[in-house]
């Protein structure tokens, strides 16, 4: 997911998950959080009852899982809907959610056995509940961001999208409770895709009876909480689903999301004890509130931090301008002091040395080859620029957006660092939408941007951002290398494992040596949890675990 640097504070990651892989085939049941990831307020016997009040940064843009493709929407959608599989606790491990599963030996056929579960209106969950949702995601009129994840991966999806078929041949209900999905090729990431909220169970009769605009504001799911009311501009009230298919949860009776995006009011409400949590409801602690909270001894212990599965980077155009010369790009790698960027972000970041963040389960390299190690050395940068034919530097433009006050500060810091080596950069700052449109033409000289994982696999970074077939929308530096393309295309068809990981590491090493990016920092996510709010944890791929949270006596 391409995001502004500041929006990256809306992303979590898990340092503790290194080396984890997909869990085995479908014998697990949905379980409470486990593992040693980042948790807060845990411990003690869960208490049933109580209302959790939160400040919500904006109204939920979408409550329809087919349309929701932002962290704010997903905060609610994950409470309203369930998917076939999900992530276990704080880990990247895939476990059954609404279904157990098995995979054929050739890795192309997935069979899901759907558990006994009901929608809030009493209708049962069946295989058709998922087929309907997959078809909605594939339907062009839905404008779903999920389409690209399963088209053309699921057999027959391309024909359905093109309007040449009325159903998707790769989606079959073997019986009411058995769903079979056939892929065009094996995919190591398919279960991760299925854990995305796009592919939740929906009630086919409810979908048929209501217009799409109604479904987007009136959810009908299987999730632990139901939408009891929405007062526009004021609040959302969620109440416990008493018939939730996972026994014993949720603990809370009610959750109230008060719409309020004032960082000052969010801080005061938390300090007054009116709200229990500042997390995904505000896409992390607002940057204005982080220092007041972390410097306050009363609350510093209530802040939970975790490095995100994301990389803030500085893109260098490989096709146009002086940076088309690989030696110029390599020279600029030595010109950037990443510690300065960390300071600009109030310490909520870790200096980056490669594309794959350390919290990614595979692909991160503890030690990089010598030619990929760039340490801050402006004298060397200047020397290399001279050798590349630019002894007096050159003029260029740094493109950035204005999503947060730190965007300009980062661009200005790099502008000054470049000035030290003779590169004269002017800054072009626009709104996020304008920046993105411009960026996707592939014609920006240099730009600051970030990428956060869609799912925990190195292909989500390397293939999406560096494959030639992704130029210019995602690969907006125009980086193109046939050897890298071959490796990425090979990795896409390989089963998960060390051999596949090595293919991606090999690809990353080649890319780093040609320097289309200056990896800047890995951002750190921060949430604030009241000591009386228990059960909170951070999963790198999901929003807040409200169904596992409870309120202790205080």
């Amino acid at each position, binding site marked *: 997911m391409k995001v502004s640097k500041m929006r990256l504070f809306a992303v979590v990651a898990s340092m503790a998950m290194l080396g984890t892989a997909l869990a085995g085939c479908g014998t697990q049941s949905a379980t409470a959080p486990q593992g040693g990831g980042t948790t807060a307020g845990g411990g003690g016997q869960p208490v049933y009852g109580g209302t959790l009040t939160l400040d919500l940064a904006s109204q939920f843009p979408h409550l329809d899982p087919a349309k929701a493709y932002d962290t704010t929407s997903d905060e609610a959608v994950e409470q309203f809907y369930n998917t076939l599989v999900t992530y276990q606790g704080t880990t990247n491990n895939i476990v059954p959610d609404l279904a157990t599963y098995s995979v054929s030996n050739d890795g192309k056929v997935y069979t899901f056995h759907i558990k006994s579960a009901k929608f809030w209106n009493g209708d049962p969950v069946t295989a058709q509940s998922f087929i309907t949702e997959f078809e909605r995601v594939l339907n062009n009129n839905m404008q779903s961001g999920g389409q690209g994840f399963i088209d053309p991966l699921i057999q027959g999806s391309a024909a359905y999208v093109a309007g040449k078929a009325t159903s998707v041949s790769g989606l079959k209900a073997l019986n009411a409770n058995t769903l079979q999905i056939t892929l065009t090729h094996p995919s190591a990431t398919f279960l991760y895709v299925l854990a995305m909220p796009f592919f939740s169970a929906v009630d086919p009769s409810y979908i048929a009876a209501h217009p799409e605009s109604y479904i987007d504001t009136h959810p009908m799911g299987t999730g632990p909480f139901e939408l009891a009311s929405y007062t526009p501009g004021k609040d959302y009230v969620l109440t416990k689903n008493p018939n939730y298919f996972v026994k014993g949860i949720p603990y809370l009776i009610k959750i109230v999301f008060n719409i309020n995006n004032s960082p*000052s009011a969010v801080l005061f409400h938390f300090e007054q004890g009116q709200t229990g949590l500042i997390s995904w409801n505000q896409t992390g602690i607002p940057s204005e509130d982080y220092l007041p909270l972390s410097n306050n001894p009363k609350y510093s212990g209530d802040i939970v931090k975790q490095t995100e599965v994301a990389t803030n980077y500085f893109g260098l155009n490989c096709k146009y301008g002086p940076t088309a010369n690989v030696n110029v790009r390599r020279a600029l790698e030595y010109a950037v002091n990443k510690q300065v960027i960390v300071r600009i972000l109030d310490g909520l970041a870790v200096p980056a040395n490669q594309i794959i963040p350390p919290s990614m389960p595979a692909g991160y390299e503890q030690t990089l080859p010598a030619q990929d190690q760039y340490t801050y050395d402006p004298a060397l940068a200047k020397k290399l620029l001279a050798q590349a034919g630019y002894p007096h530097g050159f003029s260029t433009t740094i493109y950035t957006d204005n999503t947060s006050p730190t965007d300009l500060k980062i661009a200005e810091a790099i502008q000054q660092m470049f000035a030290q080596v003779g590169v004269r950069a002017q800054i072009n700052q626009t709104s996020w*939408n304008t920046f993105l449109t411009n960026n996707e033409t592939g014609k920006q000289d240099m730009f600051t941007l970030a990428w956060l994982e869609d799912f925990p696999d190195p292909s989500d970074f390397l293939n999406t951002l560096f494959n030639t077939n992704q130029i210019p929308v995602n690969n907006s530096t125009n980086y193109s290398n046939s050897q890298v393309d071959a490796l990425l295309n090979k990795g896409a068809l390989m089963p998960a494992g060390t051999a596949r990981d090595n293919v991606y590491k090999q690809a990353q090493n080649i890319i780093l040596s040609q320097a289309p990016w200056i990896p800047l920092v890995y951002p750190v996510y921060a949430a604030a949890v009241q000591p009386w709010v228990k059960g909170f944890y951070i999963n790198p791929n999901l929003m807040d675990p409200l169904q596992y949270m409870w309120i202790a006596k205080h």
Partner: protein
Amino acid sequence: MIAYIIRRIGGSIIVLIGISIITFALAYLVPANPARAIVGPHASEALVLKVEQQLGLNEPLPVRYIHYMENLVHGNLGTSYVLDQPVTTLIGQRVGATAQLAVTAWIAELLIGIPIGIISALYDRKALDHVVSILALVGISLPVFFVGLELMYWVGFKLDWLPVGGTGGFNFVILPALTYGITGAAYYARLLKSSMIDVMNSDYIRTARAKGASPNRVIFRHALRNAIIPVLTYGGIDIASLFGGVVVIEDVFGYSGIGQLTVQAINNLDVPVIMGTVLFAALFVVLFNLLVDVLYGIIDPRITYS
């Protein structure tokens, strides 16, 4: 009078059309394509093109404008690119909150500004005038967000008398309205002071005093009624702009009104919402201007319309 009103309405429609053309052109001149933002980075080019088609983005700008105006005539302001809801619904959901804040803020300005204006005029160049003038100057000089944050901190957080932010009942409106009252009252005070001094030196006031009218009667019955006309002019424009959204105040207090909707739409380049909120604000300015002009005639019978 009726002919005058009809003429003014005709002129107002032309103004609104002009504003719509300018806003539409400016919004679309900014190079931003919402289609990719809607469907995300993994969407195929075919889907992006389809979305552009659905949003009408592949048509020439004048054609798009004509379609927009056709829909506008039928009360359809389009659908938000980001929230996927009709713009009329989004504005309708927030107009109540903004109206409540606008009227309360306006009353707060008047309640603070008018007494200061009167006192300053009556005690012109005396100690009391200097004191209230300095206070007014401080009020006018302080940034709105600063006053808002101070009130939030002291009245809302420390004393816990009122909600510090968010949207809800009338108690959520008081602090934002008071912020606006403190920072906006000085304009009314200054206008009223100069106007009041002029009036108090006029012959008919001297006559009223000579005839033995009480000071209060002279001030409130005779002087204020005439001195208030420039205040009324400013007040009309002021409340009209407040109805368009109290942008900074709404932002500081996290108040969900038209102002926040506008800011979010601009950040997202959500053109239908930008158009809708700008036209909504412009409509109020035009309407209140008309209303003020009509009220002139009622307050001051010397003003006639032809």
